[in-house]
C-alpha cells in the first residue's frame, strides 16, 4: 500500500488552526533555546512572534533563532494563510527582535 511518510513533519497535518503549538515559556529566566520543534535547534533565540490567542486561549510569544523565525513566518504566509480565512493582523500581534 502506498503511503508517504513525513518523518520531519511533526505537526500541522491534522491541526485545524495550523498555528504553532502553545509553547511553555519558562517564567522569569526566559527560554534559553529556540522553540522550533521540527528538530532539535540548539540556537539561542533572538526573534519573537507573538501569536494572538483564539477562543479564549491566551496570546503567546514564540521565541526563535533568526533562521527558524524566517521559516515560521514563511510557513504562515505561504501555507497557513492559503486555507485560513483569518488575516495577518488577526493572527500576529507583534514580531521582530526579542
Amino acid at each position, binding site marked *: 500500500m502506498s503511503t508517504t*511518510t513525513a518523518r520531519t513533519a511533526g505537526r500541522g497535518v491534522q491541526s485545524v488552526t495550523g498555528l504553532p503549538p502553545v509553547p511553555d515559556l519558562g517564567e522569569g529566566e526566559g527560554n534559553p533555546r529556540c522553540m522550533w520543534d521540527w528538530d532539535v535547534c540548539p540556537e539561542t533565540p533572538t526573534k519573537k512572534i507573538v501569536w494572538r490567542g483564539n477562543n479564549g486561549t491566551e496570546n503567546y510569544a514564540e521565541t526563535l533563532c533568526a533562521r527558524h523565525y524566517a*521559516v515560521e513566518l514563511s*510557513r504562515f504566509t505561504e501555507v497557513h494563510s492559503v486555507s485560513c480565512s483569518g488575516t495577518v493582523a488577526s493572527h500576529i500581534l507583534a514580531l521582530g527582535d526579542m
Partner: protein
Amino acid sequence: MTVNETVRIGQGQRLQEQIRHNLRMYWDDAWDVPLPYNTELTVERFMLGADARAETVSVEIRGSTRGATERYVLHLASGMEQVTCHGPEGPVDFVHPLTMRQWGPAATLPLWFDWLARRDAQNAHDWVCTEEHWESEDIEAQLYRVEQGIVSFDATATHTANFRTAEQFTEWLQQAAGPSTARLKALALTDAQAFAAGAELRLYCTRLSDQDPEAPGELVSRPLDITLGELRQKPLGVRSLGVGVGDWAGFSLVMDGPAVEQFHGDDMVPLSRVQQAFGSGEPQYPWWGVTVAGVDSVLLVPARKAVVTLRYDRDGADVWFSAQSDDEHLNKAWAEEMWSRRWGRELDHTVQLSQQEVQAAVQSAEQQLAELHYQQEEQRNDDATSTGGRQ
C-alpha cells in the same frame, strides 16, 4: 555509419529534443514550480535507450544508501501522456504525490520527472537520517533517545480510493499507527438503511476520558445532512456529512498501555446503534466506517473522495486520525509542497547557513508577510468603502 544507424540517431535526437521541450514547458519559470529541494535530477540526465525506436529513456538517481544508485526506464511508446516506468524492483505504479491516489502504471512525462526528482531528494535525505545517531535502532542509540527524552512520531497519509476492502484499510491503519497500542479498524458500509435508522440522522460529538467516566459522549449533536439516497450512491466529500461539518473530520486518542485513556471525536455516531450497518469486505455504499477498539464511536469516511492521515506522537501514546475531502487536501498539500521546496535549505538542519543567508531569509520572510498584510488591509478598506465607509 549505415543509413539505418543515421535514421536511428535522427529519431533519437528528435525524441530527446521533444522530452526536453516537454519538461521545460512544465518547469517554465512562469509557472514558478521549484524543483524538490536537494534533487540532483536534471533533464540532461535522461539517456535515450540503446534502441531509439523502442522509445525508452533511462535515468539514474541516487539510491537510499550513500553511493548507491537506482536506475529507472521510462517507456514512451504510447506518447508523452501515457508514460510507464520500470524501476529496480519492476514496474512502478504512479502514486499522485499530493493526493496519494494510485493512478496505475501510466502518467505524463513531467509527472514522472517530478516523481523521480522527489525520490532522488528523498533517498539522499534518507542517507543522512540513518547516519544520524538518534535515528538508528541499535541499543546505544535507543538508550541515547531515552536519556534525551526523544520520542518517535510519524504521519502517514493515503487516499481512500486505494482500498478495495475493509481489511485492506484496516491493515493500513495498523501499519500507519506504528508502535501505538491503539487498534483502529475500518468497516464497510453494507446497509445504508440500517445506518440512517440507527444514527437517527444525527451526528455526535463524543468524548471519553478516564477522568470523567460518567460522560461518554453525546455532548452535542447535529443533523446528518446526507439523505439516504446520497448515502447509498454518491462518493461525497467529508463536508457533506452534516450542516456545520467542515472539510475535515477526525478523532484523537491518548493511550495508556493497551487502554484508551482519552478519546475525542466530532461528528461520529455511537457504533452500538449502527453496528448492523457495517460489515467486512467491500462496501455496498461509498463509505467506510472507522472505529477504535474500546471506543463506541464510528466515523463515516468517504470511500472515493478522501485523503486519510494517521499521525502518532510520544511513541504512539498520542494518535490522531483524520479524513479530508481530496480536493481540499490537494490545495493545502500543494501549498505545503511548494513551501518546503522553496524553504528546503533553511529547513535542512544538516546545512549550516552563513550570517548573510540567514539575514536574507529573515528579510524575505518579513517582506512576504508585510505584503500579504498590506493586501489584506487594502481589501478591508475597499470593503469598508463599498459598504458606505462604516467600520
